[in-house]
């Protein structure tokens, strides 16, 4: 039997691109995927260890290094286990089989007589004296993977499906472990001056004031509208960049207006429209029609550590250290924007603070690389300021989502339309044929913006359209996508992309329809859901929550469900809230079906984190604009959920060890937001359709008290 090759293996077919047996009984495991706080390296080592039969401690991970790692695109979209994991599984199974065949030939014995224990070959249970390392010169791994080796069955796993502790955590709780902590002797510190908005031109910079504020000698490097301050002492450039914000005068460009992100604003923007019909039939004339519009605002990533990068330019070769999610794309676009041949650039991933989407990591890498090419011979270290993280990093896109259902006689949707207004959800380096690197855009010789901007295609999971298609049994489904391609806000991928608003809207709407039908929201959903795995998570979450005391005044529960991207993990969440003037999220129960789970505790950690992050977004977060810029420049202006506000969380995974692993890192976002929205609606007796569900919104909605718009179809 031959296994279908995952894309990563088609792109990087040679076995030795992935696995090598190194001195000291080590196994070099190379992956294009990178650790961004999600525990992926531990999970990949578990898969490799099981297929090779070696202890996980033997692995040396080579992750996201352009000279040495397989090119696997971006670490994004909850794809790493499904794609890189699948490749590593096939590669390791094949390597194991090649070695076993070699040993069988040498010993003239049957393959079935051989086993492997922590890398040592045994025949009939007795050590043969050989191991992977003693035979590694006899077995040639410089050959393409065929996918033909037999992979292990779940009953044979000793690492996969077990909760191994994270390999990277010990270093992170004792001392230096991050890219921020790399401190070469020849370091030259740099800070950048960022444009206030896209297209702004630098008219004047009071360098005297900046130098005075620095308190120590600095150099000022200026090309076009890009300015860098450099010094031997980091404190000098920190002070310089803080002073420079007030010392710079800008002109032109496209500052975003104060209402950017509001539903009315979104619906006013020029759009490229697209209609996708699925199924057939329309509701009969005279049937009941229900409509409601939901929305989310722009959101920021808010990594606790600001972006950081190092770069060194020596003898025409550029080395860059970065916490980018895509080192190969970054290398290619550094080459284009800095006019260097790509083969002269090496990009090395080093771990940064948590990454919840396309943040400013690539921009920081460009900044460091740019300065390094101007100050050859020094290792340049750039760190972003907290203020720039708020005002210059990409934002998660605001969205308006309008749902319309024509109901049949049983109050089930016969005709369903989802209409979405949204800027694009992905502008990573290379997308739309452009660099998408902030510093490069500020150079006067920068390439013009692309004529056409596209969002993530539906086939790749969609951007604004991610989870736009409800998983319910709907006879006719229409998607209307208004792609807002020309907005003065730099948007890109934030955890879950469009799923956050779409699942919130769809699941809120389902509760509204159930209420109109006078039915229980769980029963109403199940009557429209034939996928057994979907039914199971909903039933499980409802059962978990049913034991809680929901009788207290102002307390209520709500349900949210989705299968992420309609092809990754299934999750149903039940949220319990108490609402007075503000929403207090007290409990969340979650049921998840992620197929085979590589590391159950790691998976639970991702789901818990997703729940808390989604709760923070849904209850508190929105980016507002003032004077053409993001209004909040510090955490005080952009509150996130704190320790005293986090709910207690119970998670249950549906056992499905014979199903393929399903990506789960982003699975919790939509269902959690929806569950909170439905719980709040039930507690208040009126529905809030605009995220976040803040105190102000509650007060406004209580005064307005509007139900969904209902009528009769013509």
């Amino acid at each position, binding site marked *: 039997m031959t296994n279908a090759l995952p894309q990563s293996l088609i792109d990087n077919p040679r076995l030795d691109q992935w696995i090598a047996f190194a001195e000291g009984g080590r196994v070099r495991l190379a992956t294009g995927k990178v650790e961004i*706080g999600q525990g992926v390296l531990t999970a990949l080592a578990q898969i490799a260890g099981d297929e090779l039969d070696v202890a996980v401690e033997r692995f040396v991970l080579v992750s996201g290094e352009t000279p040495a790692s397989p090119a696997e695109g971006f670490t994004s979209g909850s794809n790493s286990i499904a794609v890189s994991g699948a490749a590593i599984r096939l590669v390791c199974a094949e390597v194991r089989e090649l070695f076993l065949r070699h040993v069988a030939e040498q010993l003239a014995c049957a393959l079935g007589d051989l086993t492997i224990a922590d890398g040592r070959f045994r025949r009939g249970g007795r050590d043969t004296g050989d191991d992977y390392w003693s035979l590694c010169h006899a077995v040639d791994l410089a050959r393409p993977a065929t996918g033909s080796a037999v992979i292990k069955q779940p009953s044979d796993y000793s690492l996969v499906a077990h909760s191994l502790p994270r390999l990277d955590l010990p270093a992170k709780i004792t001392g230096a472990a991050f890219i*921020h902590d790399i401190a070469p002797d020849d370091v030259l510190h740099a800070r950048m001056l960022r444009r206030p908005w896209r297209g702004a031109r630098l008219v004047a910079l009071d360098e005297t004031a900046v130098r005075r504020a620095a308190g120590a000698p600095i150099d000022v490097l200026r090309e076009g509208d890009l300015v860098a301050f450099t010094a031997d002492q980091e404190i000098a450039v*920190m002070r310089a960049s803080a002073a420079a914000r007030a010392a710079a005068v800008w002109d032109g460009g496209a500052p975003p207006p104060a209402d950017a992100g509001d539903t009315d604003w979104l619906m006013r923007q020029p759009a490229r429209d697209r209609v996708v019909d699925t199924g057939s039939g329309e509701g009969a004339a005279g049937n009941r029609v229900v409509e409601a519009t939901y929305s989310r605002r722009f959101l920021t990533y808010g*990594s606790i550590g600001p972006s950081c990068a190092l770069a060194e330019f020596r003898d025409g070769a550029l080395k860059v250290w970065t916490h980018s999610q895509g080192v190969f794309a970054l290398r290619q676009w550094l080459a284009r924007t800095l006019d260097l041949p790509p083969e002269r650039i090496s990009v090395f991933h080093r771990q*940064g603070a948590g990454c919840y989407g396309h943040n400013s990591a690539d921009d920081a890498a460009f900044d460091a690389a740019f300065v390094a090419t101007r100050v050859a011979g020094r290792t340049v270290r750039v760190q972003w300021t907290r203020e720039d993280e708020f005002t210059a990093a990409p934002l998660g896109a605001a969205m308006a989502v309008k749902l319309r259902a024509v109901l049949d006689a049983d109050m089930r949707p016969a005709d369903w339309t989802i209409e979405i207004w949204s800027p694009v959800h992905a502008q990573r380096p290379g997308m739309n044929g452009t660099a998408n690197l902030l510093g490069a855009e500020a150079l006067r010789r920068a390439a013009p913006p692309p004529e056409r901007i596209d969002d993530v295609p539906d086939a790749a999971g969609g951007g604004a359209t991610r989870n736009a298609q409800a998983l319910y049994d709907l006879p006719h489904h229409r998607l209307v996508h208004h792609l807002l391609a020309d907005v003065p806000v730099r948007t890109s991928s934030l955890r879950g992309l469009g799923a956050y608003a779409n699942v919130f809207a769809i699941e809120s709407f389902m509760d509204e329809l159930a209420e109109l039908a006078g039915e229980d929201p769980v029963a109403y959903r199940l009557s429209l859901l034939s996928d057994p795995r979907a039914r199971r998570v909903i039933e499980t979450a409802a059962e978990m929550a049913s034991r809680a005391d929901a009788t207290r005044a102002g307390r209520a529960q709500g349900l949210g469900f989705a299968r992420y991207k309609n092809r990754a993990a299934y999750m149903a969440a039940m949220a319990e809230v108490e609402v007075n003037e503000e929403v207090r999220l007290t409990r969340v129960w979650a049921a998840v079906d992620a197929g085979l789970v590589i590391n159950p505790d790691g998976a639970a950690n*991702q789901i818990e*984190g997703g729940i808390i992050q989604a709760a923070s977004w849904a209850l508190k977060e929105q980016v507002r604009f003032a004077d053409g810029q993001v209004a909040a420049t510090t955490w*005080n202006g952009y509150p996130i959920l704190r*320790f005293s506000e986090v709910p207690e969380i119970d998670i249950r995974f549906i056992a499905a060890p014979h199903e393929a692993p399903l990506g789960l890192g982003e699975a919790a976002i939509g269902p959690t937001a929806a569950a909170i929205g439905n719980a709040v609606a039930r507690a208040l007796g009126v529905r809030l359709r605009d995220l976040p569900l803040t105190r102000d919104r509650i007060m406004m909605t209580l005064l307005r008290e509007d139900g969904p718009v209902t009528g009769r179809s013509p």
Partner: protein
Amino acid sequence: MTAIEFILNGRPVHVDTDSTKPLLSVLREDLGLRGSRFGCGLEQCGACMVLIDGEPAYSCARAIEMLAGRTVITVEGLSRDGALHPLQQAFLEEQAGQCGYCVSGILISAAALLERTAKPSRAEVAAALDRHLCRCGVHNRIIRAVQRAGAVMAARK
């Protein structure tokens, strides 16, 4: 340049530096202790938390000249003779981290809490850590880890 002397992780240190430089910069740059992290530089996130005379304090905006003669403990000072502090051990046992960037500061506030309150409730831990931001959503694991460490330390006494 000013000469400043203080006690760092149990040992006297002497630095000659710009007296207005923040303690965090001195720790990371002058003294090479990089476990305390820069998060915001504005005393708003807690990633830079250290103990000053036993009390949790932000180090990112506090001028080094204020530290003369004081006692400072950083995350590097929590472990003794290479052995992890019970809090660090408990964080590993609970896998209380995702990216880990906020953890060193949180360990510091948690250590101060357990000095005062041997077996804190969930609400007490949350209150003691409320100045700390965690973006990955590891709060519940962190609370459990602090309670676990408290129980271990109380049992040893």
